[in-house]
């Protein structure tokens, strides 16, 4: 069971955390919503929750709740640039199909 970050993602997260001036890491998650079942969540973490599972990747602490982990296990979080747009991308091996826009998915 693991979640990893690409190097570019880790760089960015560290930069964002330092600019933000507080926060202990990054929280990944999944929630049921969207046009195709489930959607990713990506947030800064100011405090851990009792059930949180913690991973360390490239020096960044990644927190995730156990329920979300079942859908995200093996995911690599990447930071990419597409034209003028830039942002984070979930490379999630569990996904069977996504909605047209790719914002939600099911397993």
């Amino acid at each position, binding site marked *: 069971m693991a979640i990893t970050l690409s190097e570019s993602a880790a760089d*960015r*997260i560290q*930069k*964002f955390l330092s*600019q*933000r001036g507080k926060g202990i890491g*990054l*929280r990944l*998650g999944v*929630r049921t*919503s*969207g*046009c195709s079942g489930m*959607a*990713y*969540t*990506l*947030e*800064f*973490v*100011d405090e851990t929750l009792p059930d949180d599972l913690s991973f360390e990747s490239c020096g960044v602490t990644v927190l995730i709740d156990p329920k979300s982990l079942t859908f995200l296990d093996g995911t690599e979080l990447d930071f*990419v640039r*597409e*034209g*003028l*747009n*830039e*942002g*984070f*991308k*979930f490379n999630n091996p569990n996904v069977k199909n*996504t*909605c047209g*826009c*790719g*914002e*939600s998915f099911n397993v």
Partner: protein
Amino acid sequence: MALLQIAEPGLCADPHQHRLAIGIDLGTTNSLVATVRSGSADVLEDEAGRALLPSVVRYVQDGSPEVGLDAQLRQSDDPHNTIVSVKRFMGRGLKDVQDAAATPYRFVDAPGMLRLETRAGVKSPVEVSAEILKTLRGRAEAALGGELTGAVITVPAYFDDAQRQATKDAARLAGVNVLRLLNEPTAAAIAYGLDNASQGTFCIYDLGGGTFDISILRLSQGIFEVVATNGDSKLGGDDFDERIYRWVVEQSGVGDLSAGDARLLLSLARKAKEALTEKDETRITATLSSGTVVDRVLTVDTFFMLTADLITRTLGPTRKALRDAGLSVDDIDGVVLVGGSTRMRHVRSAVAKYFQREPLTNLDPDQVVALGAAMQANLLVGNRKSDDWLLLDVIPLSLGLETMGGLVEKVIPRNATLPVTRAQDFTTFKDGQTAMSVHVLQGERELTSDCRSLARFELRGIPPMVAGAARIRVTFQVDADGLLSVSAREQASGVEATIEVKPSYGLGDDEIARMLQDSFTHANDDMAARNLREQRVDGLRLLEATQAALDMDGWQLLSDTERVTIDRAMETLRVMLDGQDHTAIKRAADSLNRATAQFAARRMDVSIQRALAGQRLDAIEA
């Protein structure tokens, strides 16, 4: 798949519900757009990696608009159809643009706001600005991968209501939802996170390409308040280029340059200026169309000497702003530098010396306003847990109304913070007066003719009373959006009249600056004029009252000689009222007062006798 950004804890958006917000610095020379991604503010660049979009719109052959660098490059070939610095025309009438003749545009006067004739038809400044905003919106949507929720657009702190409204209209035309207009200095302060302190007083020194603005902001309990603004709308980086240019021309002995040569030397002058922000000397070489070779070395010391007075000129408005705010240099907790021209080392050191502290410079001075606007936009769409900033604005010029004699009575002083409500009581001038005209004015001068008329209305139905007995309360109210409403109410009867002042177009920075300047330079004239008018009003009132008394019982109470003396004194006063000498009017009024003293005493006796006649003593005592 869609790219995601990191949200604040608990604020992750649902799919397709991303709240994309941008900040736009819609500048006179250059415009920028910025956004907050994963908690950090960044300026968005175009495909070529350029952040600055020149605020230039050119209407090409087929009438379609071309915006930015391409338009700027064609400016000299196609001056009529290439609109630069359109911001100066926003919300302005043709008569507000003093240097209209110096621009290449074919202006069309139109009610409210001027228009520009181009090959694509007659365009309003709002339409031209909308083209710039459309370009920035397109850039932002490409970079954020979705439709925008809204934007914060910055405006100069002393943009008036009409200029702000014009900016909003341009945004609407460009399909940009305006979350809020934000004052440029406030945006700069936000970018530096000055709002994170609990309180403080900050000075924003903004030296751009063609304008200089100084603003003093006060932060208390998380609330930013613009306490004073000042500036010089004709001072900027271009003036520094001009100095180098003139130095080169003088040193090289080349006179009578062609337009092309002048442009070339001017652009080299600008490059030299930029080089001297890092280096201690730079070389200016050019071959002119005549074949003459120009080759000069400009040292940083010479450059500083050539431009020292320009920097001194920024300190005058700075002092005035501090004085308006009632502050001294020691009260300032931080100084922020904004505008590309603040990269010049001697600007920085002059500011540091004046304020006796190092200014904040670690953000790019060209970007700082856009970054602050983006941070505010991000907050307003709900991407951040709000410790809500409430941003207050100020009134750029005093608001008042006309009183007898063409004088202005200020009701709301300049730099009062919005929203504000002030009331003042006025009274009637004549016996039995049943109506009063309320004339609302804006400006710092003492006479109505020197101030700007905003609105007029009448209060009717005042019950007839002797002069001075009516109490009419006039209330000025300016709401958070800067809209003024004025109401007048006679206190006894409750009759009321109200007007909402929506200036079709208002005052520009130039005019505000000029009006302020005038009020300082004409302070003495104004006081003399005020004295004269006041004495005239008093004299007239005295004449009216004396005449009314004479008509009523003068024939009964006065001997012929007494009557002649009074008539003669009245005549003297009448003559003096037409003159310009307020002391002479005062003397004539005093002598009329003396001449009528006996008469007044007798009238008093008579009226008391009349009141007492036929009354029982105990009825009076009770």
